[in-house]
């Protein structure tokens, strides 16, 4: 008993204060920024939302010399998008799925489309499908069209690699002068066509950064 008490006393006396709850922020963000964002991060954590994307948003704002208020507003908005994505994708969605869902919502893709893509992917991760839809929107494709194209190819069984190739092909088409929505529709149709037709696709299978 004495030894147990002695050990307990040593532990109590030697234990160090807990490290900062957000060490990445403590190292880079000013006290003003931390004061503005930590309540938002704490709230997100309490809701079970992933905190890493929010920390990254803070660090981006710090590096870009944004004001504490502006950083806090951006973080609050992202937390709201992550929460909405979780509602659409389900409680079991991974951090990457939630990030992809939040990005898609920000791009104008509807929560209903997120849910449909989640369902179309069955047991697989829908993150890449959501990311490709988001990228199509940023390339000029209307959000509704982008969601429809991606949903079609996902329903036809396209893999993440297929989706990534489609995204790259659409980007090349647009750079070559094809209207964005036309490029997306054509590439999507080729990908969701029956296998023999897909085999005849002139596009080489490659990833632009491989």
């Amino acid at each position, binding site marked *: 008993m*004495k030894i147990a008490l*002695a*050990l307990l*006393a*040593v532990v109590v*006396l030697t234990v160090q204060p807990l490290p900062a709850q957000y060490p*990445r922020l403590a190292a*880079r963000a000013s006290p003003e920024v931390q004061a503005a964002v930590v309540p938002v991060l704490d709230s997100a954590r309490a809701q079970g939302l992933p905190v890493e994307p929010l920390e*990254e*948003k803070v*660090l*981006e*704002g*710090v*590096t*870009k010399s*944004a004001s504490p208020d*502006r*950083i806090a*507003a*951006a973080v609050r*908005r*992202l937390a709201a998008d992550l929460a909405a994505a979780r509602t659409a994708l389900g409680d079991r969605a991974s951090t*990457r799925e939630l*990030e*992809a869902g*939040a*990005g898609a919502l*920000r*791009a104008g893709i509807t929560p209903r489309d997120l849910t449909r893509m989640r369902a179309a992917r069955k047991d697989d991760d829908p*993150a*890449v499908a959501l*990311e490709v839809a*988001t*990228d199509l*929107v*940023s*390339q000029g494709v209307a959000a509704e069209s982008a969601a429809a194209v991606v949903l079609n190819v996902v329903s036809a069984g396209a*893999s*993440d*690699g297929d989706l*990534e190739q489609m*995204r790259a092909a659409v*980007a090349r088409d647009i750079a070559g002068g094809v209207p964005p929505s036309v490029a997306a529709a054509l590439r999507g149709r080729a990908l969701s066509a029956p296998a023999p037709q897909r085999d005849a696709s002139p596009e080489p299978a490659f*990833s*632009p*950064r491989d």
Partner: protein
Amino acid sequence: MPEPLPVDLERLIATLREPVDANPVVPERVLRAARQHGIPRGRALPGSRWLVAAAALAAAIALVFILPARRQHSAARLIPFVLTAPHATRVAVVGDFNDWDPHATPLERLGADAWGVMVPLRPGRYRYSFVLDGSHWIADPAAPQSSDDDFGPRSSVLTILPRGT
């Protein structure tokens, strides 16, 4: 000069530092006494619980920190970041993969106009941007642009798929 410790604590530390009796007869004597008191053979004694707890803690640390780090390392791929910026004197890439730290990943000059660096990245989705001369932000012209730029200059996005996808 460090402050003197309280007397009670000094005594406590002295007690803990006392050498343990390493007489080989002692364990046998303890076991015999334990059996006499009805403690079944193989039951953990208080001292061994600390050892078990320490081993469990070590295993947990290995599982949480060391093994995932090894997996991450093995899954990482070298990704090139290249930019043409003939008038820049310094170029860095910042993004989700380096905490947006402009000092973390500088690009090297490759000839007269181009700058480049190879960065090990795991499969995933990353937002990033180039910083020229510490203050001028440029999105990667060779990559899609991010749709959620809250702080002015646009960023780029990079998706890395697992091998064999």
